[in-house]
């Protein structure tokens, strides 16, 4: 295998029922930067049933080419069909770099494809770059429970592949003047030949809170101590029309549900404003919030690690400053009289 034959940056575009997952668009943004550095095309890979119409929409997010396989057998994700489809495309068109969203299905697919085409795959990356001198893809990821970051290289095999965590890369602004082209391929599999059958898809009731979509999050840490502290933080959140976040310790203390947990074993969030109160700043927490636009930390310990990731820090007793802040905000936002304890 000659690795020079491999060019272009590919992004797997995950969809369900024709609706494209945001992570695919985020990766087009990240992929555009990689492709520009390498001076190659950025290509999307879109598989599904009746998805062809969605392909053109990807140009606006940076794609130059979209590879499409439209086939009823691809209606829902299954490893055996998607692995075949992607494997065939890779062998035929030879991408240099191929990135996938680190969703359940994205990880499943990427792992199977890596084995299928015998190449390296870096898992759950949060930073992507190119070493131009060596023309190498540098994919970095947290490992050992977030205790360390590592850059993983794949020197002698192509494509260089990685899965990328959702919400880590920014979704680019759409530019509807961009154009591109579609390349369609056939799958060549029939339903009768397949081993696995999807019997049903059960959607869980919509989560009470979806922090991944929030613009403002106010997060409570163990420093808020108990229900009273929680109520105090909630009042601030309500005043700002913000959603409530929490550290794991607060969730484990039973003060709020797990859907609110931010961090490695909770959700990864990127709000415009993240106010974090009484959180020490353990790496398992900060991996989930460090890409927020503005981070304000309140903690009574000047040495707290949270100040390393915050943009603004306040050393203060939360029980003193938070009620004052809430009161002043109410005045500023002219929201006095609005019930906030709902």
């Amino acid at each position, binding site marked *: 295998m000659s690795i020079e034959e491999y060019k272009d940056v590919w992004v797997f575009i995950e969809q369900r029922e024709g609706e494209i997952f945001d992570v695919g668009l985020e990766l087009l943004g990240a992929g555009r930067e990689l492709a520009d550095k390498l001076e190659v095309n950025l290509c999307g890979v879109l598989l599904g049933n009746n998805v062809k119409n969605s392909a053109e929409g990807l140009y606006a997010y940076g794609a130059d080419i979209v590879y499409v396989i439209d086939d009823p057998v691809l209606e829902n994700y299954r490893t055996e069909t998607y692995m075949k489809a992607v494997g065939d495309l890779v062998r035929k068109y030879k991408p240099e770099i191929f990135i996938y969203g680190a969703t359940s299905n994205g990880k*499943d697919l990427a792992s199977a494809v890596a084995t299928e085409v015998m190449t390296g795959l*870096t898992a759950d990356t949060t930073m992507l770059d190119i070493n131009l001198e060596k023309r190498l893809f540098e994919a970095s990821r947290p*490992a*050992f*429970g977030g*205790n*360390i970051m590592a850059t993983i290289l794949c020197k002698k095999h192509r494509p260089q592949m990685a899965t990328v965590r959702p919400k880590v890369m920014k979704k680019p602004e759409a530019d509807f003047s961009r154009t591109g082209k579609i390349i369609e391929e056939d799958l060549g599999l029939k339903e009768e030949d397949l081993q696995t*059958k999807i019997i049903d898809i059960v959607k*869980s009731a919509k989560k009470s809170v979806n922090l991944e979509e929030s*613009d403002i999050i106010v997060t409570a840490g163990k420093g808020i101590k108990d229900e009273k502290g929680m109520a105090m933080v909630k009042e601030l959140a309500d005043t700002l029309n913000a959603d409530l976040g929490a550290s794991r310790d607060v969730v484990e203390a039973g003060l709020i549900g797990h859907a609110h947990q931010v961090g490695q074993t909770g959700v990864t969030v990127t709000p415009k404003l993240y106010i974090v109160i009484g959180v020490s700043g353990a790496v398992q927490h900060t991996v989930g919030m460090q890409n927020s636009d503005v981070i304000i930390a309140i903690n009574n310990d000047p040495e707290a690690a949270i100040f390393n990731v915050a943009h603004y820090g306040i050393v203060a007793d939360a029980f003193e400053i938070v009620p004052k802040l809430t009161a002043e905000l109410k005045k500023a936002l002219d929201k006095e009289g609005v019930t906030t304890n709902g």
Partner: protein
Amino acid sequence: MNILVSIKQVPDTKVIKVNPKTNTLDRSSAPAILNPYDAHAVQEAVRLKQKHGGKVIVLSMGPPQAANAIRKCVEIGADEGYLISDKKFAGADTLATSYALYKAIEKLEKEQGIDLVLCGKHAIDGDTGQVGPGIARRMGMPPLTNVINVESVDTDNKLIRVHRKIEEGHEVIESPLPCLLTVEKTINEVDYAPLPNMLRAARYEPYVWSVDDLEDVDIKQLGLKGSPTIVGTMWPPEKSSGAEMIEGSTDEQVSRLLEVMSDTQELLAVKGGDGA
């Protein structure tokens, strides 16, 4: 029904420390444990065995000490343990790991027949979740990842029905046996080990295989040599820039905070508007 569970010994990442001078992990700082997800995989295998008969075989690749992780599986109820251990396996990435494990499973399959392979969703150290699907691809088995429930096993028709967790809920999927599942922790609760299991585990010695005990192995696909990825630089994850500290009395701090937040005024106004 013979069930093979692939298990890994890992450092307990809750207590592991990073050496600030070398930016490497001080593995001696952390005790080695059975990967927590794999404990659930073994428990599920034991549960299925109790229902459908057969035996539970565990397999691990690692240094000789990994025998301790296998003993832990015997406590949970595994019948037999195999450890593949050889310098030639060292430095393996997920592709080389799945190759070595596949070669061992192939041999066990030939010797005693395997109807189902279970893996954890991921290992808490390397944390890639790539080994399970890799083994499945090599065995030509359908991989069913992120399984939260084994709904039914039909041993006559060799079919299994499981629930796979996906972003919006779960899907119910049916597959012929043999196949491979990777399991989430929520699939079950790991029971306390009954005393006879504990006694048996304490004395248990797993079968240990070197590369030479496996058949038709392509040495080039093993260990560091067989690994397309390499770990380059490592560093502790922190942003060193630090915060701009807002000093002064509480009142001063609050008013400066309001200023800072007024940079996001537009946002506050919009949110406040539609929320009120």
